[in-house]
């Protein structure tokens, strides 16, 4: 599936778009290990059961500062001593000079880099630093590294999917084709880099592919902040398309506010809605654009809470729902309904104290079944939901 990446759309437009693509050389070198305040709580995220690590990263990347988040950061700081103790134990266990998690964390700090791509880069580094003598050894090492990455944050779908895909992609053809181990290894590294590159470029590819669907005078509803969707809209704005964007607020972390800020900077007409005003405004909407945390095997998506209800409303009003998602988010999951997923939790700031007797739904995401989605824009091309499963079958079976 990775061989068939639709990256050709980039080649065509490389010249005019060059300025917008961040310099690869900068991105490819690991960023310096600076200890930011956000990183202070990172070393041991699993201890913080009230908030999934995935959302901590997102919060850090998106610069969303909520009161809850502040409280958490504070709590993390106060318990830093305890955490540090555990960390040392952890270090002692891994013991080596090179640790995947560390590498991953260093990549992860780049705000523009998706978690899965960071994982892919980290795993590529594993191959590079490996001292394995045989192919089998290397594969086992890689597997171990990816397992530790996956267990670092079990709630992140794209991290899991990215690791699986990477392993699959890198070790796909049998290493027996090469006589000696070193050439096989260098080939693996080559592939790993290529994979990382494709994943890195995925967002640009998707943005190019989706341009045909944005027509002048259209009104687009977006939900939350998705880097891919933002890239799509940014490209459309750069292509001098005239369109209007309706942004939902994106409670609880208000990622919609950030998107509206960014769009306003690009001089795109934006209107901000509260999350509950979706149905009210749907009749003036021409299409719905959403991102995805993960694309599951049925072709449905798992995304930020509220996507499902937007899809339901849009479907009932016959508006197309487009999903922009990189193909490293394709996961081998098959939820049957909303509760059929590992829950990712996220604290909600209601602004007023909530009595302890009142239960709060803290799930951070929901599942949108494929029948409510119109098309998926991926770096493999524009797909219908049912093709997702075909791609996954071809890759994994």
């Amino acid at each position, binding site marked *: 599936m990775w061989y068939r990446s639709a990256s050709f759309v980039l080649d065509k437009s490389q010249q005019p778009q060059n300025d917008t693509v961040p310099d690869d050389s900068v991105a490819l070198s690991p960023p310096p290990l600076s200890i930011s305040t956000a990183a202070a709580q990172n070393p041991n995220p699993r201890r913080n059961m009230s908030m999934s690590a995935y959302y901590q990263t997102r919060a850090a990347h998106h610069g969303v500062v909520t009161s809850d988040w502040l409280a958490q950061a504070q709590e993390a700081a106060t318990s830093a001593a305890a955490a540090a103790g555990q960390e040392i134990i952890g270090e002692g266990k891994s013991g080596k000079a090179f640790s995947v998690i560390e590498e991953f964390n260093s990549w992860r700090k780049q705000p523009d880099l998706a978690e899965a791509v960071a994982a892919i880069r980290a795993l590529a580094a594993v191959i590079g630093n490996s001292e394995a003598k045989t192919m089998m050894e290397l594969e086992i090492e890689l597997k171990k590294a990816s397992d530790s990455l996956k267990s670092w944050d079990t709630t992140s779908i794209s991290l899991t999917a990215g690791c699986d895909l990477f392993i699959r992609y890198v070790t796909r053809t049998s290493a027996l084709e090469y006589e000696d181990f070193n050439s096989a290894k260098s080939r693996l590294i080559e592939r790993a880099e290529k994979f990382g590159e494709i994943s890195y470029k995925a967002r640009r590819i998707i943005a190019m592919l989706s341009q045909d669907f944005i027509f002048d005078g259209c009104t687009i509803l977006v939900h939350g902040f998705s880097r891919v969707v933002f890239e799509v809209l940014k490209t459309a704005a750069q292509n001098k398309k005239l369109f209007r964007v309706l942004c939902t607020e994106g409670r609880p972390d208000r990622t919609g506010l950030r998107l509206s800020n960014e769009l306003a900077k690009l001089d795109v007409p934006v209107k901000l809605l509260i999350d509950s005003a979706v149905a009210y405004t749907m009749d003036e909407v021409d299409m719905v654009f959403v991102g995805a945390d993960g694309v599951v*095997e*049925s*072709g449905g998506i798992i995304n930020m809470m509220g996507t499902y209800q937007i899809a339901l409303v849009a479907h009932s009003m016959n508006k197309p729902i487009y999903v922009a998602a990189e193909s490293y988010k394709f996961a081998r999951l*098959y939820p049957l309904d909303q*509760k059929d997923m590992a829950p990712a939790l996220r604290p909600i700031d209601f602004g007023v104290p909530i009595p302890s007797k009142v239960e709060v739904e803290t799930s951070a995401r929901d599942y949108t079944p494929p029948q409510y989605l119109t098309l998926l824009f991926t770096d493999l091309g524009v797909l219908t939901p*049912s093709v997702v*499963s075909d791609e996954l*079958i*071809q890759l994994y*079976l």
Partner: protein
Amino acid sequence: MDSRRTSRAVIDPKVRQVGFFTNTPPPPDRSQSGPLAPIRSPPLADSPSPGNSLSPVMIPPPRHPSDTLLPRRPPSPSLDSDFFPPPSPTTTTSFGDFYDDVAVSPRARGSSGRGNSGKLQGASSFPGGGFEMPSVVKGASSVPASGLTTVSVVNLPPGISENAGGSVSLEGPNERNVSSKPLKEKTTKAERRALQEAQREAKAAAKAERSKAVVAPAANAKPAKAAKPASQKNDNAVGGDRPQEKDRKKDIPHPRMQYDDKSRVQKLKKRSVVKPTEARNIVELFRHLPQYEHGTQLPDLQSKFFQLDTVHPAVYKVGLQYLSGDICGGNARCIAMLQAFLEAIKDYSTPPEKTLSRDLTAKISSYVSFLIECRPLSISMGNAIRFLKGRIAKMPITLSESEAKAILQSDIDRFINEKIIVADKVIVKHAVTKIRDGDVLLTYGSSTAVEMILLHAHELGKQFRVVIVDSRPKLEGKLLLRRLVGKGLSCTYTHINAISYIMHEVTRVFLGASSILSNGTVYSRVGTACVAMVAHAFHVPVLVCCEAYKFHERVQLDSICSNELGDPDAISKVAGREDLNNFDGLDKSENLQLLNLTYDATPSDYVSMVITDYGMIPPTSVPVIVREYGRGHLWI
């Protein structure tokens, strides 16, 4: 003239009829109102055509008078001659065809362009009328029984009369030119049709010949088996074919046996072991299916057990078990059949001057046709047979007999093991992940895969309840109920009548399947579709458990074209209710038709997930599995 008439009679008619019935009144009106009246009427008046009384408007002069009467139509015999055959198709085809012809044929366009007056262009933009019209009219007039045709043409939408008006102003030669061109197009169309017809005939003939050729060698090869030559309905005896015929056979799916085809049924009867009794009132819609006629021959067949030397005893036994219903269920039937074949292969020895691969294939085919007589094959059995024959055909000819037999036996064992037993285990492993504590699982009928899933989930200590939905007449759910309750599961048993009541408390529906077709349609025990639809209406996820060897590349949209008929008595008789069982002799009445269907087709919309040995996939991905692991891979 004659040939014209016959062609007209052949092609024909519905359009004409409709036109005739609806349109007798309008023509006079239109002839007066339209601008075409003055021009059209003269030929009308002089027309000798018998049909003209019906439609005064459009009848143009017949061939011979036309030269004299119509100055705008100079006679041209050569043109006329290729003028006449075609009209019949044009008149009979729908307006859509007119559109097609005009749009498609560049010649027509070109000629109109040459005609070049603006009016003509206008006319050509109305494909139904304009220059198309004269040809139609002419053809109609030339045929005695043409009244109908012409009326139907008059029956064209009002726009046409305007077109005709427009075209009227054309100069003679020009219009001649124009009208003849599309006609030529028609000619080609008629020719095409004739050609098609001829090709079809040739093909049919070739096919008949081929099938004869196929049967003949088989019969010659084994005189002992002459009574049961290779059956035609399951594409066997391919081995004996020449390669290109083989290819052709592969390209076109072999037609399934249609049991309303009298001649073929006769043929079949002649060589069948199981003597069928004539079924009573056949349900009209299902006439093409083999009618249920078992039961009565069982003792008869049992007595013949030691007489039939053509069928291996193991196969014979399995056949009887199918017939009596002792073995049912897709997997059980398939395993029983394969094991019988295993026995048969073990006892097989190649007759002198024969090759193993051909002779054994023929032998297997004869067994299969016997099994079909006992009970129609299930799709899983069909796939297994295809697999086995493929293995036999691929057997290298250099192999010694004992080696070949050993390989085949291990292949069959492997198929049973990998494709059925291990596949079920994998399915269970996947499905159990979808069962949570507190679930209420509904199942319909009795599926081995579902039973294994439920038992395994229970062993894992999951807390759940099972609702078993059952239906008459087979009541297979009772057996499942007994087994599950025996293992300590908490069960609810109900009949399908209560499905809409029970569904609201259900959280998952697990269904088995006889087959899944490549459009995602689930082909399963009758009633499954009903359960799936109710579940869908209640937003309960429907999980279908099916081993991948049961997938089939066929596409089926309804339960009619392929199905199996069960014993009609089974639904008409209720045990212990004598008052209901008395039909007062009405069951001999022609007005009573009892329909006991065995399978139905569930559209993929109602299926949330298919659990197979390749994992959990949406029903839309079934063709991907069939394609990717198609043929060789899927059946090893």
